[in-house]
Structure formats: C-alpha cells, structure tokens
C-alpha cells in the first residue's frame, strides 16, 4: 500500500479546509536509525466534514495529528490550511494560525494543568491573545463552560482533579472552543473513558460541531466509535494510509485486506465481519525498517512478489468515494485475487525483519 499517489485527493471541491500532502515524519533513533513514523500520507478534509483516522498502535495516526499542528514540524510534506502551507511558516507565523486549529487529547487528566482552576484553564485561550480582562471575554468563557454541561461558578474554584474523566474532556473541549476554531483535531478523546461516558462525550462533540460549524479530524483505534462519528474514514498501517473514503462504504465493503482483518476482529455483538475467521498473524514490523513495497505484505494473506517490489497507489473502487492502495484489493467478488501467474503467494515474515515493540 502506498501514500504514494494522491489520486484520492478531492481537488474538485473548493471548500477543502485542510489538505495534507505527502506528509513525512521521521525521528532519528540512535546514531543511524530512523523511525519512519509517517511515510507519505495525504488526505483532505472539507469544511464541516469529520474525517476519522483509525489504526492500531504504531500506525502513526497520533503523529500525523501532531504534525498537522507542527508540534513538531514534519520532516517533509505540505499541510495546507485555508490556502496557507503551515510547514512553510516560521514560529510566529504558525503561532498566529494556532487559534484556528485546536486539539483535544486522549488523557483527560494529563491535558489539564492540575494547579489551575478549571475556569482559568478554559480562559487561557483568551488570556493568551488579549491582555485586557474584558467582561465580554469572561462571559464568553462562562457560556462555553455551560455549553459543555458544567457549572461555571464551580469552575472558578475547582481544579481538574475534582472532576471525573468525562467532565475533564468537556473542559478540554470548552478550552478549545473558546478560540473559535475552524478545525478541531481529536486525538483519541474517548479512549480512556467509561463506555457510558463515551456516549455522552461523542454526542456532545456532535452537538458542538453542529452548533459551531466545526470541521473535525477524529483519531481513534476504536472502529465502532470512528464509524459513528465520521463522515469519511482513513485506515492507517505502519505510517501509511491503506484505505480511505466514505465511512459507510468502507465499513460495508472493506477492500483492503488489513481493513477486513481489522473489522473482523471487533468484538461487537452484531459484527457481520466476524464471520471472517481470518486472524491477523505475525507481529508489527519495526518502523525502523519497514517492509519494502507494500508495508502490509508481511502479514497479508494475499501478498505476492509484486507486493514486495512495487508499492501500490490509490485506486478508486467503483464510482463511490472509496480509495484503496492495494494490488489485490477485495473488490467485485474477488476478481482481483492474485492468480498463479502473478508469482507465488508469499506469507509470513522475511528473515531480515527487525521485530520491535510498536509505540503505544
């Protein structure tokens, strides 16, 4: 699979708010080694859309999110927001853009300063950008706290540890909204919350989105949550996107072998994909030395020689908003299955893989 190829970018629309092209994020590890966290990832989000990025640990989804807000700056690639390439901005230039792109984090506790009152935390956005204490600003902050379902007068005296996980996430949302952002990037916002609390936060996010006309990038490892929340979904594996398109379409007819395995694994009581008894074998290859060609080939039931030598690029599936980067995607009743004259089936790892624990 490849991020190579930007066929799936929707240049035909003129309301694309955020567009990521050929994003690469690499970290150096030790003297010679490089961690290929994100390798040539492209996608776009239109105004008012929610794009969900789903993938397992080590796929690079969180790194992608951070790279968009340039924290830190990606190794290469373009991040275009409202026509401006964020990667080309200097520190101050990027800082000026920050209010428009906000973030919500996975750990509700860690994302709030334990020493500050909740009111101050939510208010921080306004304090950063204006030095005058205006009545209006205070009112706005109070309204925002109320909008997420918390009591503003309590917020003035309480600190984060006096609230539950779900309430802390609400505080995070309020903090983000105070700056009137256009885009909110949600990095696993409900993963550490109880099931019944998750539902409330997801509903709240949807309400906020409708109310304030937000555009969301929603990152999660939970496939059911992503499906519920997103308009479009991108599936990532080892630093690359393997499938992207309309959420309902992908979940009904996953084309990429990895997506199919992922869906089959969900312990949903009514999962129709669990008929598929295939299990994802093997271990995640090391991002220090990812497989050549298609990165998924070492664990793919369909891999052939071609997958080793040639990186697949995005092709459209049918006529719908459905793109897959695979040489042998599951389409149209398996007309695409590898045949014997395309080389042997290659399964399992090759000997020179470095098996390494993926980043959580």
């Amino acid at each position, binding site marked *: 699979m490849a991020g190579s190829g930007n066929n799936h970018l929707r240049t035909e629309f003129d309301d694309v708010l955020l567009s990521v092209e050929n994003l690469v994020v690499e970290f150096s590890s030790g003297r010679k080694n490089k961690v290929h966290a994100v390798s040539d990832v492209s996608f776009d989000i239109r105004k008012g859309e929610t794009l969900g990025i789903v993938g397992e640990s080590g796929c690079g989804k969180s790194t992608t999110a*951070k790279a968009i*807000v340039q*924290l830190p700056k990606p190794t290469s690639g373009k991040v275009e927001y409202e026509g401006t390439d964020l990667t080309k901005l200097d520190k101050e230039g990027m*800082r*000026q853009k*920050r*209010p428009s*792109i*906000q*973030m919500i*984090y*996975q*750990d509700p*506790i*860690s*994302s*709030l*300063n*334990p*020493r*500050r009152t909740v009111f101050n*935390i939510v208010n*921080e*956005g306004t304090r*950063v*950008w204006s030095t005058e204490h205006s009545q209006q600003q205070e009112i706005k902050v109070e309204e925002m706290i109320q909008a997420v379902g918390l009591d503003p007068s309590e917020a003035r005296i309480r*600190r*984060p*540890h*006096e*609230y*539950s*996980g*779900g*309430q802390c996430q609400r505080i*995070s949302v309020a*903090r983000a909204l105070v*700056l009137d952002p256009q885009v909110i990037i949600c990095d696993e916002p409900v993963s*550490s*919350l*109880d099931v019944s609390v998750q539902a409330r936060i997801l509903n709240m996010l949807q309400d906020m989105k409708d109310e304030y006309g937000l555009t969301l990038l929603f990152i999660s490892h939970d496939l059911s949550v992503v499906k519920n929340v997103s308009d479009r979904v991108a599936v990532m594996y080892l630093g690359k996107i393997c499938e992207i398109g309309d959420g309902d379409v992908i979940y009904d007819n996953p084309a990429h072998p990895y997506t199919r395995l992922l869906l089959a694994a969900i312990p949903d009581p009514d999962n129709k994909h669990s008929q598929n008894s295939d299990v994802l074998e093997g271990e995640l290859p090391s991002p220090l030395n990812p497989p050549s060609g298609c990165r998924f080939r070492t664990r793919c039931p369909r891999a052939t020689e071609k997958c080793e030598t040639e990186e697949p690029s995005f092709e459209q599936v049918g006529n719908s908003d459905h793109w897959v980067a695979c040489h042998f995607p599951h389409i149209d009743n398996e007309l695409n299955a590898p045949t014997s004259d395309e080389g042997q089936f290659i399964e399992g790892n090759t000997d020179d893989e470095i098996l390494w624990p993926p980043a959580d």
Partner: protein
Amino acid sequence: MNEEQEINADEVTNDSQASEEETSISDSTQLEVSEFADKKTLGFGFWLATFWLVLISFLAVFSPILPFKDADKNYIAYEQKENPLTGKVQERPVQPPYAPSGEHWLGTDQDARDILSRTVEGARISLAVGALTALFGMIVGGTLGMIAGYFKGILDKIVGAIFLVVLSFPGLILAILIVALLDRSLLTISVTLGILGVAPIGRLARAQTLSFSEREFVMAAETLGAKKSRILIKELLPNVLIPMSTLAMLVIAVAIVGEGTLAFLGLSVQNSATWGKLILTGSGLSTLESSPWVAFVPMGFLFLTVASFNYLSDRIRDYFDVRDIFVTRD
C-alpha cells in the same frame, strides 16, 4: 462536591470510629486499589511542627520588643560567702554557669548570660540564614533548572555543567575561602550556603520541568498559541514550585545545621549570637559535664526546628502528591 464518586478517590483516615464488630482491622487503613491513596489529611504532627516554627519565627522576629532579658548582659549573681583569704563574710560572685531557675528559665552560660534570651536571639540569625539560603537556591537554582528542563539543547548542557561544578566543590572549603576573602556578614554566609543549595534544587527543578513538559497540558498551551515564556511561567512554574518548595524546606534545615558547623570553625556570622555559636560555647568537656544546659538548650531548639522543617517537607509533599494523582478507570 465530586459528583462522580469513584471508590479510588476516597481517602482513609487515621482515627475512624471502629464499631465493635470490626476489631480485626487495624487503625490506619489504606485502599489497595490506588497505590497513591495516601493519607490526605495533614495530621497532628503537621500542626505541631507548624506551631513550633510559627512560635520560633515569632520569637525571632519580635525578640527586641519581647520581655526577654538582655542577651549580652552578664547577670552575675552574688551571695554572702566567706572569703577564704580573709575569713570574713562578704558578697562574692557566684561562679556561672547558673542552672535553670525562676530567675533564668533556661539557665545561663559561663558568662552568666541568659540562655533563653540568647537562644531566641540566635534564632534570628539561624532562621535568617536558613531562609536566605533557601531563597537564593530557589531563585537561582530554580530558574536555571527550569530553563534547562524546558528549552533543553545547549542551554541544558551549560546549566548541567554549572550544576556539576557546584556539586563537585567541597562545600566546607568553599565556605572557608569565601569567608576568608570577603567577610562574615549574614548575607555572605547565606549566599555561600545558598550556592551549595543551587545544584540540588536546580536539578530537581530541571527534572520536574522535564517531566511536566511532557504532559499534554503543556502541548495544549502551545496549541492555544501561548509563547514559551508564558508556558514556563503559567503552566510549568506552579507545578514545579511545589516539589521545589518541599526541597527548599530541607535546604533550610541543612543551612541551619550548616551554620552550626561554620560556627565551630569560627566562621559563623560576626557579632551576633547564633545557635551554632551558642552550642560551641557550651561544648567544652567540663561544661558539658557540669552544666549541660548551656549546650543542650540551643541544640534542642536547633533540633526541634530542623526536625519540624524536615517533617513539614514530607507532609506537604505527600499532601500535594495525592492532590495531583487522579483516578483512572477501575
């Protein structure tokens, strides 16, 4: 009122009322579920230590106007005694030191100076040394440490080198050098001791800053558009201040003892009573034997004060630790 009451967030008390059935449970219970669920209350010892420190500080600050005896005056007592040379009964001075009595509650030293007054006076200097040392250490060490921890890179390396040099320097020799080269004023002594405090406080500040700057709320602040300086002051400082302060209390304790050591070398603050000097005065072998109170009273005050600071440091650290730690899912 925390509306979502989760079991892990409950704390445990020392003195809960046990009913007759619950005799198998010991008095101090602890929740196993969360390893951080320490005692959240400050406790009796805390208040005791605080009381002592408040008392001694009050005495130190207001000693000039409090009705203590003059600390420098020699209160030689006289009695009617037979002069061995002439055989006549005369008024003769009684040999000091005088034991504690109604006249001198804690006795006098060999020069018949009232020990209580002198100890109270000594508190002024000793506490001042402690406070100034800690202050210096916090300001200089804390600033250096936070800068190193937040900005990392070359700044970190420079500060690290500074700390290393300071730590490696034998403190005593440094003290002797400085005192020999400069003077023996309160300020100099405090700054000398303070320099020695810079490295431990600084290292702690650096480690804490490093740890806190990894937390998401710092990244969140950056995402909001806050400048680095603002993040350092508004987000990091309030968090780093707590552990720094508890360490600072320990530094005060060490400085007070340090002053005592300097006094024994004859290097303590000039022209003032300090606890170290007082202890020194009473430390002659014969004095210790016959009139132990001369040394023990200042020692006792020093001990109580140092112990209080140490204890407070522990309690405060525990108290704030619990506040910091949250409850996560089950």
